[in-house]
């Protein structure tokens, strides 16, 4: 009879109607977030596979390894990333960023890792984003990877490059290792100047420390190759540069 008892029932009221709408909105948002999280996990898993594929590189198999990596990467782009792009448009880029950021970072890591091994240069954000443009309807403002996720992915890239450098040195590919060293140093130096401008530098600061460690690991590796190479030359009696230090490990035969 009273207002109070009435409201205990599920009778209609403007407030109740409004909250039903709110409920729909929240349910939809939640489902979309869930989908995006799943898409992000797929991207992470497959990007990691690309990274492992690139690590299989050596001076003997460069072309075939990179060809396979290119294929795998294209699959991630055309399948998983395309799915994500279709899922996200307009303001959702930023609203749901936390849901997809890990996957996108890993994707950037994989794409730039492949890119460096292929061409020796840094694959730019614009290039990556250009390749994503085709998946969505332009009028929908489809997902473009944002600069923050790109830079976070780049920070992880340096860890993979460090691993690559250590491996290449053991295989005698010293020039490649030096090239990596220079590249990673450059990224570190540029990021040092860039990170303070980023929106949220918390993650990035830890990554910067790890990155400096990576740089120093490569430098230390180059140092030991250098000192042992330098010992060799005086032993030979300096003036014989033709007997290449780097060549030593190639034609081994007791």
């Amino acid at each position: 009879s009273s207002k109070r008892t009435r409201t205990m029932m599920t009778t209609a009221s403007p407030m109740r109607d409004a909250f039903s709408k709110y409920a729909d909105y929240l349910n939809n948002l939640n489902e979309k977030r869930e989908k995006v999280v799943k898409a992000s996990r797929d991207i992470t898993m497959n990007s990691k596979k690309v990274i492992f594929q690139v690590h299989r590189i050596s001076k003997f198999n460069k072309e075939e390894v990179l060809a396979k990596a290119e294929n795998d990467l294209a699959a991630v782009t055309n399948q998983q990333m395309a799915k994500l792009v279709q899922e996200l448009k307009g303001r959702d880029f930023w609203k749901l960023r936390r849901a997809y950021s890990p996957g996108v970072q890993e994707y950037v890591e994989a794409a730039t890792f492949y890119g460096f091994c292929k061409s020796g240069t840094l694959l730019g954000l614009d290039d990556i984003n250009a390749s994503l443009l085709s998946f969505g309807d332009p009028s929908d403002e489809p997902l473009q990877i944002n600069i923050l996720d790109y830079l976070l992915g780049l920070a992880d890239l340096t860890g993979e490059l460090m691993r690559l450098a250590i491996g290449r040195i053991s295989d005698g590919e010293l020039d490649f290792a030096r090239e990596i060293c220079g590249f990673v140093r450059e990224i570190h130096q540029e990021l040092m100047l860039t990170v303070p401008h980023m929106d949220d530098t918390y993650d990035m600061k830890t990554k910067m420390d790890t990155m400096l460690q990576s740089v120093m690991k490569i430098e230390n590796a180059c140092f030991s190759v250098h000192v042992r190479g330098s010992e060799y030359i005086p032993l030979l009696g300096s003036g014989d540069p033709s007997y290449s230090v780097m060549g030593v490990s190639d034609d081994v035969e007791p």
Partner: protein
Amino acid sequence: SSLEKQFEEFRSQLEESGTFREKIRSVVMEIESTARLLHSNLLTVHQSRPLPEVLEKARSHIATLKDLYEKLSEVFRECPGQYYRYHGDWRSETQNVVFLVTFMHWLETGDLILHDEAANLLGLNSPEFGLDLEDYLIGVCFMSNELPRYVVNQVTSGDYDCPRKVLNFLTDLNASFRILNLRNDFLRKKFDSLKYDLRRVEEVFYDVKIRGLSAKGDSEGDVPKQSNDTH
């Protein structure tokens, strides 16, 4: 080198975003300071200041807030689609504003201001620059948190009808909130607190009820002697 150029560009983009953020921050500080004045002003209802006077003053602050949000929306017009990028920079202030607006509206009408009404009131009603639903709902919970205090102080100053009104309102609000499926986040925590508000108000209502302190006869004065007589 090309790398350097690429990073130069990143830095310029980020600096732009930094500048942008500064602009937001400056408007948000104004919002915060206006909200503080409005808050101070609204709080006087706890000391039983006459409502019309309180509300009139408050309305002028609302107008200021609307202007400030308009200013903020202009700032955002510079970078379309990035509303949620900077959301963290002003959301807690906006939740507070929603609280104030919702409380005020309730004092005026006894009803809950709805999402789009609140959005309209603050000029947060364009598709690009709206009022985030969760911010609205959190603001509503803040309002609920204020009501037990209001009820207690109203009863203290002799308004014995207030508990019933608030109890009805909170019961309704609580039932409405229960329609929602929430995640384990801040909003859920705030909704949990709503139950305690309801309980407290119910207690006050009970206190008044068992003493027979009805609204009509409240001219008699505020000592509960009479209520003993009633039974």
